[in-house]
C-alpha cells in the first residue's frame, strides 16, 4: 500500500536518506545556538558553562540522529514492553531511588543513574498512540477510558516522587493522543468539567505544602516580596525592563547583578527578555511556532494512525513545555520546575526532547513501512 503523500519530491535527497528533516533541524539548531548565547550571559559569563552545555547539546543531537534511524514500526512493536519496563522503573524509583532536592527521581541501573520519568515522556505517547490506533478512529468510549487509565498510572507514580511538572507533561502527552484520535466533544467537555471539580481534591489532599505555597505566591507574589514571591517579582522586573529593544546582550542588570534566581536554568527566558526585549521575544516565539507547525505538518502527512497520533502528541507536548515555562516566568502560571525547551541549561530534558524530535524525523522520513 502506498499512500498519496509518498512520492513527494524529497525522497531521494541526501537528507532524506540520512533520515533528517531539514526544516525541523534548522529550527532546533536555531534554538540551541540562541541558548548558548543566553547561557553565557546568564551564567556570569563563564565560558566553561557554555562549553559544558554545548557538549550536552552535541550529545543530544547525536541521540536525535540515532533515534531517527529507527523505523516507527519498531516503536509500535515495542510499545507494550517499553511501557511495562518504564512502569517497573518508576516503581523501583519510588522504592529505592536516590533522593535529590527532596524528591526521588533517579535510579541506579548498574552503569549509570537514570531518571525513568524522562524516558516515560516518550514511552507514554508511544503506548497510548499504539493502543488507540489498534482500533478504528474515531476512538470509542471504552477505548478512551482504558487509554485514560494507561495515562493515569505513570502520571500518579511520577506525581508521587514528587515531580508535579513532569507528571503534568506526561498526562498531557497522553491526553493529546486521545484528543487527536477524535474523542467526541461531548466527552471532552464533560472531562474538562470533571477535572475542574477535581481541583479542590488536589488542593486539599494531594498537593504538598511547598506546592500550595507556589500557587499562593503565583496568585499574589507581592505578599512576600523577599521570600517566596521574590523569584517571580524579580523575573517580571527583568522582562518588563527589557522594553521593546532590550538592554542588550550581557547588559541586563537584573541577571548580571544576580537579582534573578535560577538565571541560566528555569528562568532563562527572563534573562532573554531583559536583554533582547519584545523584538527578541517575538522572534523566539516565531521559532517555536515554526517548529510546532513543522511537527504538525509531519503528523498530518504521516502514513498511518499510529505515527500520526505519535507525531501530533510529541509536537503538542513540546509546545506545552514552551507555554508552561514562559507562562510561569512571565507570571501567568504558577512556578513548576519546567525548563525552556532547548534553551535552558541542563542536559536531561534536552536529551529527551531531542530523542522526541528524532522520532518525529523518523516518522517524516521512513516512508515504506508496512501497515
Amino acid at each position, binding site marked *: 500500500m502506498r*499512500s498519496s503523500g509518498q512520492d513527494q519530491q524529497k525522497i531521494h535527497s541526501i537528507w532524506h536518506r540520512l533520515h533528517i528533516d531539514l526544516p525541523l533541524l534548522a529550527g532546533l539548531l536555531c534554538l540551541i545556538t540562541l541558548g548558548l548565547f543566553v547561557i553565557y550571559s546568564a551564567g*556570569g*559569563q*563563564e*565560558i*566553561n558553562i557554555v562549553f559544558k552545555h554545548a557538549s550536552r547539546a552535541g550529545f543530544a543531537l547525536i541521540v536525535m540522529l540515532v533515534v531517527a534511524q529507527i523505523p516507527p514500526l519498531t516503536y509500535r512493536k515495542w510499545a507494550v514492553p517499553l511501557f511495562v519496563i518504564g512502569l517497573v522503573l518508576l516503581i523501583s524509583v519510588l522504592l529505592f531511588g536516590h*533522593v535529590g*532536592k527532596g524528591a526521588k527521581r533517579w535510579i541506579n541501573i548498574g552503569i549509570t543513574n537514570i531518571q525513568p520519568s524522562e524516558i516515560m515522556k516518550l514511552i507514554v505517547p508511544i503506548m497510548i498512540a499504539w493502543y488507540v490506533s*489498534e*482500533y*478504528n*478512529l*474515531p476512538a470509542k468510549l471504552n477505548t478512551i477510558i482504558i487509554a485514560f487509565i494507561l495515562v493515569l498510572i505513570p502520571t500518579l507514580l511520577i506525581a508521587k516522587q514528587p515531580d508535579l511538572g513532569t507528571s503534568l507533561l506526561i498526562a498531557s502527552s497522553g491526553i*493529546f493522543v486521545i*484528543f*487527536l*484520535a*477524535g474523542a467526541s466533544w461531548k466527552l471532552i467537555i464533560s472531562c474538562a468539567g470533571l477535572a475542574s471539580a477535581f481541583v479542590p481534591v488536589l488542593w486539599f489532599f494531594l498537593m504538598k505544602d511547598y506546592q500550595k505555597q507556589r500557587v499562593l505566591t503565583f496568585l499574589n507574589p507581592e505578599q512576600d516580596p*523577599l521570600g517566596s514571591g521574590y523569584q517571580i517579582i*524579580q523575573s*517580571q*522586573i*527583568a*522582562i*518588563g*525592563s*527589557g*522594553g*521593546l529593544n532590550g538592554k542588550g546582550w550581557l547588559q541586563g*542588570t*537584573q541577571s*548580571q*547583578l*544576580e*537579582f534573578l534566581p535560577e538565571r541560566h536554568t528555569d528562568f532563562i527566558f527572563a534573562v532573554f*527578555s531583559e536583554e533582547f*526585549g*519584545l523584538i527578541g*521575544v*517575538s522572534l523566539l*516565539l516565531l521559532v*517555536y*511556532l515554526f517548529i*510546532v*507547525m513543522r511537527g*504538525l505538518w509531519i*503528523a*498530518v502527512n504521516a502514513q498511518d*494512525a499510529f505515527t*500520526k*497520533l505519535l507525531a*501530533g502528541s510529541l509536537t*503538542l507536548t513540546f*509546545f506545552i513545555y514552551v*507555554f508552561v515555562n*514562559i*507562562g510561569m516566568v*512571565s*507570571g*501567568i502560571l504558577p512556578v513548576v520546575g519546567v525548563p525552556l525547551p532547548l534553551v535552558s541549561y541542563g542536559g536531561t530534558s534536552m536529551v529527551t526532547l531531542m530523542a522526541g524530535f528524532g522520532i518525529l524525523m523518523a516518522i517524516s522520513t521512513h516512508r515504506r513501512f508496512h501497515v
Partner: protein
Amino acid sequence: MTLRKRVVIRNQTAEANLFARRTFIAFLGVLVLIIILFSNIYDLEINAYDKYQTRSNSNRIKLLPVAPNRGLIYDRNGVLLAENKSVYSIEVIPEQVKDIKGSILKVSELLDISEEKQQKFFKALKSKRRFKPIELKSRLSDQQVALFSVNQHKFPGIFIDARLKRYYPFGELTTHTLGYVARINRRDAIKLEDKGNSENYTATRNMGKLGLERYYENILHGTIGHQEVEINTQGRIIRTLDFSPPTPGKDLTLTLDIELQMIAKRALSGKRGAVVAIDPRDGGVLAMYSNPSYDGNLFVHGISSKNYKKILNSKDLPLINRAVMGYPPASTIKPLLALTGLEENIITPDTRIMDPGFYQLPGIKNKRRDWKPQGHGWVNLNYSLEQSCNVYYYDLAYKLGITRISRMMEKFGFGDYTGIDIHEENHAIMPSVEWKRNRYNQPWYTGETLSIGIGQSFWTVTPLQLSQAISILVNKGQIKIPHFLKATTEVVTPPFNDNLSEETNDIVQINNNLSEYTKVSQIIYEDKPPIILKQHKNWDLVLDALHNTAQKLGATAYTAFKGSHYDVAGKTGSAQTANIKQNETYDAKKTIESKRDNAMFIAFAPYENPEIVVAVAIENVAEGGGGRNAGPVARQIMDQYFGKRVIISEDQSKHPHHTNIYGKK
C-alpha cells in the same frame, strides 16, 4: 495480534480527515496560547515598561547571608583550645581597577607577593564572574595588612578581606580529642541537605570533621544571619539597610585539663601508646592523649597532599586515636575477674591455689606458664593480684567458664561503645561463645578460656574502656558515662547596635565581647543503671587488693608509685602480641619491635574517694612489663594532678612552640 483481528476495514481517508481536522483545532489552540503569552509579555515590556524600568533601576536591595562565629572551646580551667583567628587576604574586583596589570604589579611589589601568585591571579582573571572579587594573596601577615591599609587609597578596587579561621593553639596535643574543622565537601553538603540544614550553612565554609568539633557541630555552628544591603549599578555595596545578626555557636567548656594533657604527651614521647584519665566521680575525661599525634591545623586550611601523605604513610600511624583502639588488656583486668569469681562463689578471699610455675588442664599435656618460671607457691586472692599470678587466674577462668566471664565483663562495658562524645570510638572485642560462632563459625575452646583469664586471646579493650571499667569498680557499681563536655556558654540576645557605619563595604562582623549577656549551662549526664552485686563487700575486697598491689613492697605496681605523696592503687599488665611456643622464653631484645609485648597500667587515687582513674597502654616496649613502662606514665599524670603542677603561663598558652601554620618565618 488478537486485537488486530477486530479491525475489519479501516477507512484510511476518513481517519486521515478526522486527524487533520483535530490537528487543525490543536493548531488553533497553539496559536491562541502563543497570543496569550505574547500579549502578556507585550503588556510587561511595552505598557508597563516605565514601571518596570524604574523598578529595575531602583532594584538595589540584596540579601546577603552572614556566617555565625563558631563557638570556642576551653579546657576545664578556661584555657582556650580552639579559637577563631582573623585571616586576612587581599582581594581584587577587576571591573573597579583601571589599570589592572600595573596595579597588581604595584601591590605585589609593595607586599612582596610572589610571581607565582600573580600568575595564578591572572589565570583566575580569565574565567571569572563579573564583579566577583578574586583573591590575590591569602594569609597576609600583620605587617602586610598594615602596609596595605596605609596605601589603600592608591588602589581602588583592591581591598583586604577578613575572615575567621579555626585555630588550635595546642596543635597536635588536642587533635585526637578536639578533632578539627575543614572545608565542607560535596558529601557534607548532601548530608546537610538531607538534614534540612543547608540553608543555615550558606555562608559557612568549614565544618567539624573529627572529634568534638564533629560531635558538637550543631552546638558549635550557630545560626546564620542576614544583611540587607544596597548596591550601586556596578553591584558594589553602598550601605547596609538592615541586619539580622547571626547567632554565634555556643562555646564549649571541656572536662579536659590541658596541663595533664601536656604531661601525658611528655610521658609518652618516643612511644606509641595512649593515656586516658577520668574523674570517676562524674565521668569527665581529664586527659586523653594518643602518641604520636598530628597537627589538626593543617587540615583547616586544606592539607597539602605532600603533608597528608607524610601523615598517612607514617609507620607509627598518627591518624589513629589509640585511646579508643583495642588492645589486649592483659593482667589489668585480673581485679575484675577476681570480682566475678567472688560474686559467683568460685573463690573466697582465702581460697588458695598452688602455683608451681605452670598450669595444666586435667588430662592435657600442654602447659600454661606463669610469668615467674619457678611459680608463686600457694596463692590467695590478695597475693594473686599483688604478684599478678597467672596460674591463679587460669584456674579461676577455667572454673568460671567463658559465658559467666563475658556476661560480667559486658556489664563493665567491654565490647561496647562507652558512649563518649566523639564518634571515632572503637567498641573493641569482648569474646563469648556466640561471638566466636558469629565471627569464625567455630566452637569455643577451653584453652581460650584460660587465655581470657590473663586478658589475652581474642579479648581487646580500649584504654578508654579500661578507665571506664576501673571507674565503675571504684564507684562500686555506679556507671557514669565518660564525656568531654562540661558546660556550654551562649550569648543571650545581644542588643544590636543600629548605626552601622554607612560607608562600609565589608560584611559586618559582630562583636562577641558581651560577657554580661552570656549564659552558662552545665551539662548533666544521666548515669547508666548500676551494677549491683549480691555481696557488696566484694567490691571492697578487690579494691583493697589493688591498693596492696601499689602499696606493698615487692608487689607489681609498687615501684612505679614509690614515694608518692598520695594514696594510690593500681595494677600492671603486659600483653603478648606474638605467640610463644612451648618451652620457649620471651626475650624482648631478641624479638623484632612490632612483636614485642605491650605494656598496660591502670591506677586510681586517692584510695579513699578516688578523684582520678588513669589507664595507660604502650605498644611494643623494649624491656620489662607494664610496671616499668606504663607505670611511670601513670605516675607522672598523678603527680601532676596531685600538686606538682606545671603552670602554663599566659604567654605559653598563646604562643605554643609548634608548627606555624601561617608560614611566617
